[in-house]
Every structure is written in C-alpha cells, then in structure tokens.
C-alpha cells in the first residue's frame, strides 16, 4: 500500500527542535562544569586561565602543571565515566524493560569489588600508608584493576551464557544479576572477615568510586570503550525505540530483539566493567541520569541517549567538583557525592512531573 500527500508537520518539527535545544544547553553546561572542575581545588585557578592553559597558551608554569598533571585527567575521567555510566544505564533500562535497571543491575559492581578484594587480600596488593592526604593506598593498583576487571567480565559472561540459553528474557537477566550480585557480595564479606585491618581498609577504600584515581595512561582505554559503546547505542537508537514499544511490536518491525538485547547488554557491561575496575563503584549516575532526562525530554531514544550522556557528564563533573571543595583540604571520593547532588534534583523532577 502507499500513503502519500502528507507533509512534514511544522508543530512536530518544533517539538523535535525543543529537545535538541535542551541537549545543546546541557552540552554547554557540561563544558562550563568541565572548566570549573579544573579551576576549583586546593589551588584556585581562574577559569579563563584554565581555558588558556588547555589551549596551550602558558600563563604560569605551576598552574600548567596542576592543570595538565592533576586536574585535567581527573576532569576527563569524570566526563567519560559520567557519559559511560549514564549511557549504560539508559541501555540497561531499555534492554531489561525495567526502570530500576542500572549499569550495576547485573552484579558488575559486586563482581568488581570481589575481584579487588581477591587481589588485595589473597594476592597482597593493598596496605595502609599514614599520610593525611592519602591514608589508604593500594600498593599494586594495576594488578588490582586487572583482577577486578576479570571478575566483572566473569559475571558478564555468566549472565550472557544463561540469557543466551534462556532466550534473552529480561526476567532471567535481572534475576541472574541479583543472584550473582549477592554471591559476589558474600564473597567480599568472606574475604573481609579473614583479612587484617590494613587489607580491610584497602578493600573498603577500593569500593569508594573516585575519579581522582584516574591517570593519563588509563584514559585512552576508557575513552575508547565508552566512545565506541555510545556510538553503538546511538546507531541502534531505533531498535531500542522498537523494544520500548514491546517485544512483539519490535519483532513485527523486523528487529531481532534477542540479538539486540544480548549485544546491547554486552556493550553496557563492558562499559560498566571498565569504569568500575579503573575508578571503583560510582552509583546513582547510571540509575538516575536517564530518568532525569526522561522527565525533561521524554522516552524517545533518539534524544534520550545523547541527553543521558550529557546529563551523566554534568552530574559527575558537578559532584566531583563539590567533592573536592566541600570539606577542603580533604577530598571526598565522588561516589559519596553523586547521590547527595542528584537525589534532590531527581526528586524535584519526579514531583514536578513531565515537561510538556
């Protein structure tokens, strides 16, 4: 059949443009926060000088060193992790058809924590140094990270295998995730029970997600995984819209629902695993940023995915900036702040209802 003689409705175009404007405003805000995050800290560097230093126009060598060696990698890590966690969250919510889904629904955070605990307690990679700035340290961060990542991938592999055998049903994925999460948490408790004070402190410290752990050499890997993953979800935005309309509708539209679920879950798990292994557990961002965006620009994945990326960057950059000034000269890990910063905004958005 053919349907002709329609026109592109002007009011629909206006409605789409409004969503694009929100995303642009968000992108500008996240850039401003990026500069602010570099500017604020124990040594205050005015934002203009930050931009100059970033552009390679040297103002002061000392400031350059602070910007390039300390603050920039941390700000970039916050930017990438914010985008990654939020994108993984929005994808998981669609894949699992569940508003409570987040990057950690499948037990990746517990698996990562267990991996880190194995490394610290059994392989002896953790100890305590008594300095005020950095009271606990992990003597071999690389090994800890690698072991944490391996356990994240083991958890993902188990879920992928089970969901593949069981036809990728969301219920099976979620319930397997819950079971694995409990299993790994129990494993962490077991190891903690038999560890000494120093190891116990190191294990607990590891689980506090902190973008301050980022170093230049880990950024390319994070950027690559998060960048490729984001691109994958954007390419598949219409498939996620179709799955949101119901599995049967999606299948009727030619979408291979089981495959989109399985691949999407793998990509989201990979993103989460890299972030957890490198920075620790940063909660709330992946769960709530997508919902904030839904309240502002709706559920259309064409806008929800880029919108969530921007919102994740905003929340994590803002949280990290506040984490470094709120009890200065002490620096809080960002994971403590994300919920403090995000929850009030989120509750306000829930209370206000949808934007029309």
């Amino acid at each position, binding site marked *: 059949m053919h349907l002709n003689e*329609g026109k592109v409705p002007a009011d629909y175009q206006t409605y789409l443009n409004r969503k694009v404007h929100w995303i642009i405003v968000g992108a500008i805000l996240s850039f401003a926060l990026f500069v602010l995050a570099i500017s604020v800290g124990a040594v205050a560097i005015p934002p203009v000088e930050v931009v100059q230093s970033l552009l390679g126009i040297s103002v002061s060598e000392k400031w350059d060193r602070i910007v390039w060696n300390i603050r920039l990698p941390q700000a970039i890590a916050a930017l990438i992790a914010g985008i990654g966690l939020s994108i993984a969250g929005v994808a998981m919510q669609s894949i699992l058809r569940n508003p409570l889904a987040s990057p950690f629904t499948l037990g990746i955070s517990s698996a990562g924590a267990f991996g880190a605990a194995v490394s610290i307690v059994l392989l002896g990679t953790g100890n305590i140094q008594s300095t005020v700035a950095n009271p606990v340290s992990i003597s071999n961060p690389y090994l800890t990270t690698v072991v944490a990542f391996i356990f994240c991938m083991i958890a993902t592999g188990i879920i992928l295998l089970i969901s593949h055998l069981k036809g990728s049903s969301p219920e099976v994925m979620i319930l397997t995730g819950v079971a694995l999460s409990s299993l790994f948490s129990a494993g962490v408790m077991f190891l903690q029970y038999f560890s000494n004070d120093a190891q116990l402190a190191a294990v607990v410290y590891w689980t506090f997600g902190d973008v301050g752990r980022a170093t230049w050499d880990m950024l390319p890997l994070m950027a690559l995984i998060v960048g490729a993953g984001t691109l994958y979800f954007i390419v598949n935005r219409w498939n996620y819209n*179709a799955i949101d*309309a119901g599995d049967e509708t999606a299948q*009727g*539209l030619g979408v291979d629902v089981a495959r989109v679920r399985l691949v999407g879950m793998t990509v989201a798990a990979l993103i989460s695993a890299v972030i957890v292994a490198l920075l620790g557990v940063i909660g709330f961002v992946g769960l709530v940023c997508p919902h904030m965006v839904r309240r502002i620009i709706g559920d259309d994945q064409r806008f929800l995915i880029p919108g969530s990326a921007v919102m994740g960057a905003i929340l994590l950059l803002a949280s990290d900036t506040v984490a470094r000034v709120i009890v200065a000269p002490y620096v809080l890990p960002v994971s403590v702040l994300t919920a403090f910063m995000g929850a009030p905004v989120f509750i306000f958005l829930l209370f206000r209802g*949808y934007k029309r």
Partner: protein
Amino acid sequence: MTTILTVNELKFMYRNKNVLQDIGFSIRRGEVVAVLGPNGVGKTTLLKCLNRILRAKGGTVMLEDENLLNLGTMDIARRVGYVPQRVETGRLTAFDAVLLGRRPHIGWDVTPRDMEIVDAAFTRLGMDALRLSYIDEMSGGELQKVAIARALVQEPKVLLLDEPTSNLDMKNQVDILNTIREIVRDHNIAAVMTMHDLNQALRFADTFIFIKNGTVHIHGKHDIVTPSVIEEVYGLPVIIGELGGVRCVIPGACRIA
C-alpha cells in the same frame, strides 16, 4: 480479486508438542479474514508464524510470488504489518510512536518522506488532532489506532492483527474494525485478524478460518458459519439468528448456574 497470500503445510512445534500441523489456506486482495477458535488453539501462534516472529518447522507462506519464510526479518517487515495484542506506552507523542513503523525502511535516520507518510496515515485514520498527544495519556481506543497507524506506515501488503478489539468498549470496537475494513478495501491489501467475538467477526470479516486441533477445521465465507461448525470447534451449542437484519450468535442450551 486476486490471491495475495497462500499458506501451505505450515507446521509449528513448541518443545515436542505439535501446535500447528499442516495449516493451509489462501487469501485474496481486499479481504478481511477472521481467524477463530477457542483459547490456546494456536491462533496467535499462527499469526506469528506468518511473519516469522516464530519460526515455523515447515511449510511455505507465499506472499504473491515470494516465500516469506525465506526472507530476512526486515524484508518481511516491509511487506507485512503486525499489530500485537499488547502495546507498551512511554513518554512519546503519537507521531513518534507511528514514525517507529518506518523502522524497516529507515537507513541512518528518518527522512522527510518518512514523516510525510506518517502524516498521511494520521489523516487517513482521522487522527490529526492526536499527532502530538503523549501516548501514555491516551485511551485504549486511541492507543489501538496508533498501533494500527504504525503498522500502516510499514506500507504492508498484508496486515496481521492479534485480537484488535480486546479491551475496547463497544463503540471503539466498531470504530477500529470499520477502520481496518476501509483500509483493506481502499488500499487493496488484506488483513488477517484473530478474534474471540463471533458477532464482531460475522459483521466485519469477509472470510473465516476456524482452527481446531492445530489445523484448519474449515475456511470459507459466511455460509460456513453454522451452529454445527461452531459447536464442533468451541464445544458449545449455539443459536444463530437475525436481530435487526444482523446475524448474531448466542450460546444455546447452556444452563445458568
């Protein structure tokens, strides 16, 4: 009227149980077909086998001269529109929701032409005023129309509808079924729908396929719908009579407890 869809020896098994065996029938252009039978007999399974949402274990589904079972899922979706029984809502406008029906035709993103087709579908179904309404605020009848519009913009040759009037009030049922009939006539396509309400089927369908024991019990026009056929298929004696010039089916000698 020329034949548009021919099904031959279609089989479907669930675990080791034969659900459908040796299903065969053919449908002509401009025809509205009602698939009838008791719960659990495999009506929905049959629909889903036609557009390969479920993989048939054998047989052919010829759409004109192509076997649909040999085509890719996107190719099928460009030829066959499907309206499931359950439609999920979200924070989307009706226009967004219908635009999704262009998915099988979309490359990187929608084109102005896709939007023009969607716009035409809204006009076609008399829903212009609903274009920018949010579907999570719509009534069941409006939502069902959105689902039908979504299937229409796939530009299908055959529409499959799984109980299109379940959960709708009487006026909306008549409204939806009239709409389906009109579309089928005007665009010279065919519609296959599973139904429970024999009275609605009698009023709006041209031909009837009764399914029993996983196979086509009988297929034909109004004359095949008789009390004996219905009793054979549903196991319930019925009376068929005329009321105001309309053929009606009511349960016969059943005792009210």
